[in-house]
């Protein structure tokens, strides 16, 4: 029995003094010098709540880490601290929704997807209740290791009937998505970027609509189909590829469910382009497999590749190191695409 345990300790001590990089929990995903906006989710919710008295905010001991503290300060009488109890958070949100309120419930994506799954599924989704689940640290956005890396949330929530699943790219999109998900009557899961969130889409005259994929950039050789913060990365990759005379289009798919299959099929059917689906998520069951399955079902034939996290429990470490290691940094994407062309 103990032999099995020993196998898990094949790790050798790291050499001291080389590359002392931090794996801080709240590592920012903003590049140095990038334009950012602070707490876009919290501020957008405060604004919206002024005209929507049914909105209430709930958290499981993570208001400060999901930007819901902004709402809690602005509307203290509409904020519920549920303690570090994610199952109660979701069950109580269902209860408030049954009484006519619109709960915005926040925690980290891992704990919603894993700890509270059953409560979201049966208490909220099966009854099609009006609960908006907004979760920080999606995919690989912390170096803390598997306990905090929500690499599987899209797969988990895609499989849940009735649930709308949103993976926004930047502060601009989060600000637009908050009123849009409130206007949608039914349960929503939205991945959050928190703290100082990059602003990327301002230059693209972007309009967020639930269920709509948007072409941000056209190109003849490669079609990136991307979601969440990977859209920021593939936009950068497309610039870098252009310098090498590779022309890349970017189709941003921030609604994972329901999937805008019409737009995706139309773009993927255009001849002569390599389709590369990019997501901040495991290769299992996320946007890439959703697109691949739909293209196969609908008879659209195209060259197809995925940029996604491997089917593994990922390492702890500094985010830039991990994004390079697992192929989702801009430079890693550029290298992958060049290799595929």
């Amino acid at each position, binding site marked *: 029995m103990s032999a099995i345990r020993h196998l898990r300790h094949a790790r050798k001590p*790291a050499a001291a003094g080389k590359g002392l990089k931090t794996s801080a*929990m709240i590592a920012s995903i903003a590049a140095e010098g990038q334009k950012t906006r602070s707490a876009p989710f919290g501020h957008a919710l405060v604004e919206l709540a002024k005209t929507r008295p049914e909105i209430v905010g709930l958290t499981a*001991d993570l208001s400060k880490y999901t930007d819901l503290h902004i709402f809690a300060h602005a509307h203290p009488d509409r904020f519920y*601290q549920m303690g570090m109890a994610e199952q109660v958070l979701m069950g109580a949100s269902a209860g408030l929704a049954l009484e006519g309120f619109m709960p915005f419930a926040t925690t980290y994506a891992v704990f919603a997807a894993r700890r509270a799954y059953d409560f979201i599924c049966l208490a909220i989704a099966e009854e099609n209740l009006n609960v908006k689940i907004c979760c920080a640290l999606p995919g690989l956005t912390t170096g803390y290791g598997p306990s905090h890396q929500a690499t599987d949330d899209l797969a988990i929530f895609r499989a849940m009937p009735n649930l709308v699943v949103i993976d926004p790219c930047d502060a601009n999109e989060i600000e637009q998505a908050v009123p849009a998900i409130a206007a949608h009557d039914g349960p929503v899961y939205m991945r959050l970027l928190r703290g100082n969130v990059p602003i990327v889409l301002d230059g693209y005259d972007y309009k967020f609509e639930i269920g709509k994929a948007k072409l941000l950039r056209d190109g003849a050789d490669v079609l990136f189909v991307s979601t969440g913060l990977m859209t920021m990365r593939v936009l950068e990759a497309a610039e870098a590829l252009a310098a090498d005379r590779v022309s890349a289009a970017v189709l941003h798919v921030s609604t994972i469910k329901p999937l805008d299959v019409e737009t995706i099929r139309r773009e993927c059917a255009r001849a002569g382009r390599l389709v590369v689906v990019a997501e901040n998520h495991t290769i299992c069951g996320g946007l890439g497999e959703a697109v691949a399955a739909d293209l196969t079902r609908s008879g659209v034939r195209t060259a197809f590749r995925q940029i996604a996290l491997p089917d593994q429990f990922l390492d702890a470490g500094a985010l830039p190191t991990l994004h390079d290691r697992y192929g989702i940094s801009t430079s890693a994407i550029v290298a992958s695409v060049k290799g595929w062309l």
Partner: protein
Amino acid sequence: MTDPRSDTPKLANMSLARRAFNIRRLAIRMGQVQGQGYLGQALGIADVLAVSYFHALTYRPEDPYWEGRDRFLMSNGHYAIALYSALIEAGVIGEDELETYGSDDSRLPMSGMASYTPGMEISGGSLGQGLTIAVGMALGLKRKKSSAKVYILFSDGELDEGATWEAAMQATHKKLDNLIAIVDVNNQQADGPAKEISAIEPIAPKFEAFGWFAQRVDGNDLDALVEAYDVARSDPQPRPRIVIADTKMCKGVPFLEARDKSHFINIAPAEWQQAIDILDAGRPA
């Protein structure tokens, strides 16, 4: 002593006060590597770890998975910096390795994981899981007719999680007298003081109502901790035991103790050395 496990080297020839001091000092040095870390928690829990590793536990530093060892589980994975310090002090991990704390490919990641670190029995971090695993290990040890015990440290925040209480009820139902829980009541959680976040109090009567033998002590008083551990271990009833330890965050470094309490205390670059100097000025024998 007829305990077949009594061949463990006795590490007790240094005072517990000095052990706790060493653990604190190691934790500060580790935090200094990254300029951050859960130092407030580490300084608060150092006395509990000193008593655990240098009074209560039976183990072999050179063979951290020795079958006869007492298990020490840490559910609150973010306290890793504290446990690494205790494991270094206990000789399970080399002192040099602290220079790699939180760095890429280090065996000492910011959040504790069993697959990274010798002596780390479980992967904590998804809070509220630890006591459930401890119940299984205690059952397993009984199945193997082992006299080893399971010690499980968890945080006051974890009292919010339902799984803690589900496990607490089963531990009683299964008469797990080989299970000793320690809860760190530092009255702190991510969003603020634990007692303002949930009605965690009164903790001891809650566990008593669940059938546990509960003691509440000053978690920064070494003598009180030693006594509580001894009483817990010798309780004759077939029931699980818990030591509820009230600790002070940042204990031992007054200028940090005085700082506004928060889950993640910020420490300026120059303050790490100041903290070491202040600690050193009070080095116990």
